[in-house]
């Protein structure tokens, strides 16, 4: 039995078929430890700035 993902991804004109999907490179970078360590700190810093700057 095919999964819903397999059944729907090639079903023309379904909303599901129009969704953007990640490339293999995108999937790789999402799990690349070095890039993710950088993102961990960068996103934390961004969130910190948003939180601190949002109230007085």
């Amino acid at each position, binding site marked *: *039995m*095919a*999964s*819903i*993902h397999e059944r*729907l*991804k090639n079903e023309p004109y379904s*909303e*599901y078929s*129009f*969704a*953007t*999907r*990640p490339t293999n490179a995108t999937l790789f*970078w*999402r*799990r690349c*430890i070095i*890039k*993710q*360590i950088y*993102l*961990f700190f960068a*996103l*934390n810093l*961004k*969130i*910190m*700035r*948003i*939180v*601190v*700057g*949002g*109230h*007085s």
Partner: protein
Amino acid sequence: MSKVVVLGAGISGHTAALYLKKGLGKNHEVIVVSPNSNYQWVPSNIWVGVGLMEPNQVKFKLEPVYRRKGIVFKQALAKAIRPEGDSTSEKGFVEIEYVDEARRGQTEKVDYDFLVNATGPTLNFKATPGLGPDLYSNSVCTYDHAWHAWQNLKVAFEKMEAGVHQTFLIGTGHAMATCQGAAFEYALNIAFEVNKRGLHKFADIIWISNEYELGDFGMGGAYVKRGGYVTPTKVFTESILAEYGIRWIKRAGVYKVEPGKAYYELLDGTYHEQTFDFSMLIPGFAGAQIKAFNKKGEDITSTVFAANGMMKVDADYTPKPYEQWKSSDWPEIYQSPAYDNLYASGIAFAPPHGMSKPMESPNGTKIFPTPPRTGMPSGVIGKVVAQNVIHRIKTGRKDHPHKASMVRMGAACIVSAGYGFTKGQAATMTVSPIVPDWEKYPKYGRDIDKTVGVIGLAGHWMKLFMHYMFLYKAKAKFGWSLIPE
């Protein structure tokens, strides 16, 4: 000596109580009234709901923390507010009813100089017949609900392992429910666990939502920079659902749930049914339904509270069409316009209107998300309300130097999409401000440089890091106040 009473010990009330005690010290009294003896870190309930955490990992007893900090804790329900006192008392007071074992059913009048209403939402399962963990759907809104959901989910997994196909229906259980983020997170986590077990061939996971477009999340959606384009969160959301093999039903107002079947109306006015083996549907939220009376004992509930039970504050509640909504409609200090020593914090305050454009089906059913105010904004509002109360007590002045409008405040939402130090994943979304401000940011409604959507392992680490960090902060351990909300 001043007495400050805080109703509720969720993210907002607990934050307010800790800052109040820290700022006021031993010379003033801080009392917390809450029916729940535990504090819970709600964002981690998702992991309880998929069996990756035990309820004990997301909650702790409040009483020992309050005893250590010198805060009085009353495990009780607030039944009524009498801001002007009554014939025997000049001071405002709250009528409470104890729910703890020792004093169950006993009532008390707790007088106050300042009252902070942080009662959070009432989970309004009754608004949708058949909805809720006591009936035919699951919930992850509390740790108990999440644990119950996991017990049912385990059964579904066992059936799939035996080769039986299962349909999962996850999303909003009312035409005007909010908190899509939590349901979305749960759908992704179920898909992750299904794939992890190699059971995807036996699973049909369906996301059902009252959003006009996916990625609205009750905040009118957002725009993020991705791959050289500025894209709506619709693209971001549809992409991750498709990646996880989840199909979706949008613009849907669920109006009834029966065993194994949900009934919904679409925005185009058509009626449909969806069968399921397992469902988790978020209910609508309402206020705590506290009554208010004046000195003569006359009911002034409609003066103090909005029709949904949430408290009116310094917002502009004049009914107006979407096109006339303004950033200045939103409150800044969360003070009651009727009584200046009364404040509402977190979900307890009545928003002036939604953030998402109101939509109505040809049958007159309103189908759109109400505005979210959970997590980060709740904590920030709790802190700012506490700072202003401290200022008023210490200086005797009536001004409010601290402000936290959701039109200026940003927020981060980390949507878990799988657990594991190297295999986990989460979507990190930041928006600033929370409420779109089309006057200040005419192009995208928000500061596009502060609004991001990133998927990856780092998001999972952040979610896990925040779990431990915010529980540490909530336990008021050394240096807790240095950790931002």
